[in-house]
């Protein structure tokens, strides 16, 4: 019997009982859960409709220019908006965070799951998960008052000695894309680490033992049977981190420099879509700015959905190649 068949026969007894066969409480429970389950997609639909509706003046006025131009001019007599800079800032800062956080998270997860002595596992996991409990404004303030002063000499050095590389060819203020990427990396570390650790721990012990018994070294065992087995789960963990990085607002706003130009180097001050919203929404005035900001939110939702869909596809493709999926 294949796994799929087991799954469907597991589901059938509940389904086959039928609504009328059960007593009142059972029926109410079933309808209740159904209502709540439907409520969530409805909520998302309503959200999308409201966002589109409120963004209409901006969508009508700017059309595609909103997505192809790079300018944020909210002065009441000007009111012209195009958000390429914010899209670039959002994507680049999040990718930067992933590049920095994924290797550290994975190494930590492997250590915690397989290598750490038992007495160290608990406290260390706890400390890492504690990172997730810190409010984002605290990360922002820490970023601006601790990280940025530390970063400035590093940036200055890179600029002086590696300035020929376009990435490092910018005024080293300390505040900017790199600072935002670093803060984001620290913020998503605990998510990627704890989920990856769970997934790696879920790899059957026999699989490890079999590999070692065949003469594989520990490194070979880790690379093959362990990480390969767990890869769809690890990918899921990374996507979770990416989702968090894309939407992070306050900490990024504090350290990114909020410049409405397309960043030209790692050191450039930039903006992300959430930071733009956080900055502009409170005092948004004029005919178009409030609508333009709602359109920014709409674009952010759409981009998040696209990235998530892409990630789902990736996970699905990867797990098809597995001997047996970890995720069910």
């Amino acid at each position, binding site marked *: 019997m294949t796994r799929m068949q087991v799954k469907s026969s*597991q589901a059938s007894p509940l389904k086959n009982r039928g609504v009328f066969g059960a007593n009142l409480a059972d029926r109410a*429970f079933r309808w209740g859960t159904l209502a709540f389950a439907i409520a969530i997609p409805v909520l998302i639909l309503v959200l999308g409709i409201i966002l589109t509706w409120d963004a209409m003046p901006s969508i009508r006025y700017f059309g595609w220019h909103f997505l192809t131009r790079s300018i944020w001019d909210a002065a009441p007599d000007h009111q012209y908006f195009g958000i390429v800079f914010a899209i670039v800032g959002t994507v680049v800062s999040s990718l930067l965070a992933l590049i920095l956080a994924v290797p550290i998270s994975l190494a930590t997860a492997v250590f915690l799951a397989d290598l750490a002595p038992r007495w160290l596992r608990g406290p260390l996991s706890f400390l890492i998960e504690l990172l997730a409990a810190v409010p984002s404004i605290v990360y922002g303030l820490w970023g601006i008052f601790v990280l940025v002063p530390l970063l400035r000499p590093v940036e200055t050095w890179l600029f002086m000695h590696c300035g020929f590389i376009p990435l490092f060819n910018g005024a080293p203020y300390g505040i900017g894309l790199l600072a935002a990427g670093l803060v984001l990396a620290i913020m998503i570390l605990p998510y990627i680490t704890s989920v990856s650790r769970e997934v790696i721990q879920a790899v059957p012990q026999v699989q490890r033992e079999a590999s070692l018994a065949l003469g594989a070294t520990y490194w070979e065992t880790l690379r093959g049977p362990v990480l390969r087995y767990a890869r769809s789960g690890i990918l899921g963990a990374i996507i979770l981190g990416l989702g968090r990085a894309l939407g992070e607002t306050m900490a990024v706003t504090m350290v990114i420099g*909020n410049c409405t130009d397309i960043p030209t180097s790692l050191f450039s001050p930039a903006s992300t879509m959430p930071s733009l919203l956080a900055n*502009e929404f409170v005092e948004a005035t004029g005919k178009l700015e409030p609508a333009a900001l709602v359109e920014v939110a709409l674009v952010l939702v759409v981009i998040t959905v696209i990235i998530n869909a892409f990630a789902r596809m990736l996970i699905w493709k990867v797990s098809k190649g597995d001997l047996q999926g970890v995720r069910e």
Partner: protein
Amino acid sequence: MGVNRISLSGKEEVMVSLATPRKAAQGWCIGIGIALSLAITLGIASCKGKSDAQNSPTPPSLSAVNLSGAGATFPYPLYSKWFDVYAQGHADTRINYQSIGSGGGIKQLQAGTVDFGASDAPLSDDEVKTMPAPVVHIPTVAGAVALAYNLPDVPGGLKLSPEVVAGLFLGEITKWNDSKITALNPQLKLPALPVAIAHRSDGSGTTYIFTNYLAAVSQTWATKVGKGKSVNWPVGIGGKGNEGVAGVLKQTPGSIGYVELAYATQNKLTYVSIKNKAGQFVAPSIESTTAAAASAEQAMQKNVRVSIVNAAGADAYPISGFTYVLLYKDQKDAAKGTALVDFLKWAIHDGQQQAGPLMYAPLPKAVVTLNEHTLETITINGQPIGKKP
């Protein structure tokens, strides 16, 4: 296979036992709780439209009056102090103020959900048109915007002219030892550092006053950038809030940026003396801000919405502005209208004593008189309010 079947039937038993009456009742409680909380949330959301700003049939003298206001964050420390002090002498008036930003305050007033709005910028002509009824402006207090800087070897005493300030913020002057700056500061040794501009990234009244000043003194700025609570800055790093700008300033040698005067003094930032219209270099202070407010009195007689940046007086600090309370000229509710006018009369007289310690500039006498006249024009359903002391 067989094992699976057995475990499945086990699960079924668990399901059945879940449905025993007591457990079911618990489930119901949770369900009802969720439904209730949803209903409450929705209820609150739908209440937004019909708040207490509209006519209430209660007689004026019997119960306490609840006034609600919303708007600017800049004067919030002073306003909350006012409401506190005022409540001690007037137990029958309660004022609730939400500092949601000037733009939000104007929108709420427009929708009629608050009794008064508060804004750091007067209504623009366009905004006046969108209001459902005539609105009056009461300037409550004046504030100054300080230009703070961080130059390692210059502990203080930097002087700048309007042209240089505009040049710096336009990105035309890029080095601190530029001849335009050294000419104004022969006594200072200015370093060859690049200029780093820091500005507010969030929309704010402070930005409005500062860009209003730049637009007043520089034609290039007026046409290229313009004025507003948020503008398209030609150069620089944006910091969120006064603390964000101060963070950039403290950590970046060669930086210059603008913050509220109160914030600059509390955080011991060094700030620039600016050449005013009369040719004097004036540092921001409570006195020089009040002087700026006083010199605008003539113009305010004609139109209270006039700006006081680049004011004419010899002692006037040029980057200052009023913050305003906005209310409808014709009040619909007698009790509320009277209470609001009484409070505003108190605020422009006794309330001014609270301003200085919180680093706001008190209103000059002429503006107080002007406000008195404005408040006398307030009517309740077309009838003038009885003159009160």
